[in-house]
């Protein structure tokens, strides 16, 4: 059974269609990259999977369970996944408190919180930074804290919305390395939105190409990059679609 199943999902904001009848499966244990130009609907797709917004049409299943229902039902499902946003979205608190937040929301004991946060910070290469104020971190450090905040929850699905968009190469490498490790060590399924084609090539098992809210093509990474089936994919991969 696939971890996520989207069937004919559409979403509009005011008068703009962000997604049009998207059907997409996310397989357990894979890294799936969502590529596409700015405004293609990548963020909307991730927010829909994270159950932060409702689809106008279509169905989304998570672990075989229909995500439609009460807010409590959606929250229960949402707590099995974690999302890292393009901007780190850290609270005005210490690094420790930021990483601990999701655990505290779930009612973990403080002893367990301390152990898990310490381990998560070590995992992203930031151990010893727990007492620093989040506001004093560099962009790369902040994004790694945001990643630790997601990983500490041991999610079944990790959603990453262009997390390296504004980072320098060492931080991009550090984040990619962590993503690869969590996928191989902990078998966490990853959905990674990016407009960096090389990054998608480096990280993914499969790639999905979104264009103007439409899912144009999904395929194994090498297959999609070497033999795209749709002309629009070819244009995008060759840099002929301006974005």
């Amino acid at each position: 059974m696939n971890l996520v199943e989207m069937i004919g999902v559409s979403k509009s904001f005011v008068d703009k269609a962000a997604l049009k009848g998207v059907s997409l499966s996310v397989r357990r244990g894979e890294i799936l990259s969502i590529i596409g130009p700015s405004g293609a609907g990548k963020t909307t797709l991730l927010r829909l999977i994270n159950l932060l917004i409702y689809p106008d049409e279509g169905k989304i299943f998570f672990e075989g369970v229909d995500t439609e229902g009460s807010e409590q039902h959606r929250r229960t499902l949402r707590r099995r996944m974690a999302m890292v946003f393009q901007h780190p979205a850290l609270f005005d608190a210490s690094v420790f408190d930021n990483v601990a937040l999701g655990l505290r929301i779930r009612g973990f004991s403080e002893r367990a919180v301390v152990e898990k946060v310490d381990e998560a910070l070590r995992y992203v290469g930031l151990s010893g930074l727990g007492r620093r104020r989040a506001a004093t971190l560099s962009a790369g450090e902040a994004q790694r804290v945001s990643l630790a905040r997601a990983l500490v929850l041991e999610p079944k699905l990790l959603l990453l919305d262009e997390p390296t968009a504004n980072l320098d190469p060492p931080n991009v490498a550090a984040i990619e390395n962590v993503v690869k490790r969590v996928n191989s060590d902990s078998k966490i399924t990853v959905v990674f939105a990016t407009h960096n084609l090389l990054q998608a090539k480096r990280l993914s098992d499969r790639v999905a190409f979104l264009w103007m809210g439409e899912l144009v093509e999904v395929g194994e990474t090498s297959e999609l990059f070497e033999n795209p089936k749709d002309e629009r994919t070819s244009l995008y991969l060759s840099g002929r679609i301006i974005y």
Partner: protein
Amino acid sequence: MPGWEELFYGVFRALQLIFSGDPEIARITFLSLRVSGAATLLGGIIGIPLGATIALRSFRGKTIVISMINTLMGLPPVLVGLIFYILLSSTGPLGFLHLIYTPEAMMLAQLTMVIPIVAGVVITSTSGIDVGLREAAISLGADALQEVRILLWESRLGLLTALVVGFGAAISEVGAIMIVGGNLLGYTRALTTSIVLLTNQGEFVEAIALGIILLALAFLVNVVLTCLQMKSRSGLFAQTRSTKINRKVEV
């Protein structure tokens, strides 16, 4: 006519009154602190959730409600006093409560002014929270109540500012408590009403002295609240012992 001399003597007299432990001054000061402190505390209990709810929820007429609260932030104390006088006077609709010319009536009048001030400042500070933070809290699994708690924590400096501003308005207010309290010696006489009375009697030195005590009182309360602001940087959504444990492990 009063001049610089009264001001200088006023300062000396204030120090004299503070250090002599004059029982009447102590009673007046304590009453001011009690009435304004209670009004601020209750104003915070009502105004903070009210302001946060208005800021964080979408509903029809939100703009009108915010405009009304902003208008009420400048509520004239004399008008509040007049309305409470009519309501609480023996022939008024709430006369049976026998609250007119009591400290409780003074507190109610100040509370009426403090609530919109606190709510207004909370609306401003909470509305300014980054939408991304709100979404992050939900994404992390927060329920509606947890989301509000997290966002209030995030805007905690604004909440403390709301209390500081609310207390400042209450402690310095004179019109309302003069009308509903009656400025009765030993019972409802507060610092501000005493200053008005002494000024009317030409006792400028004493009036200045009480003004300085009033200022010192406001300063002390602000120092306490500012210290709270400075210390409120750790413990996001934490249980009580978290910070200690945090320190042990992270050092």
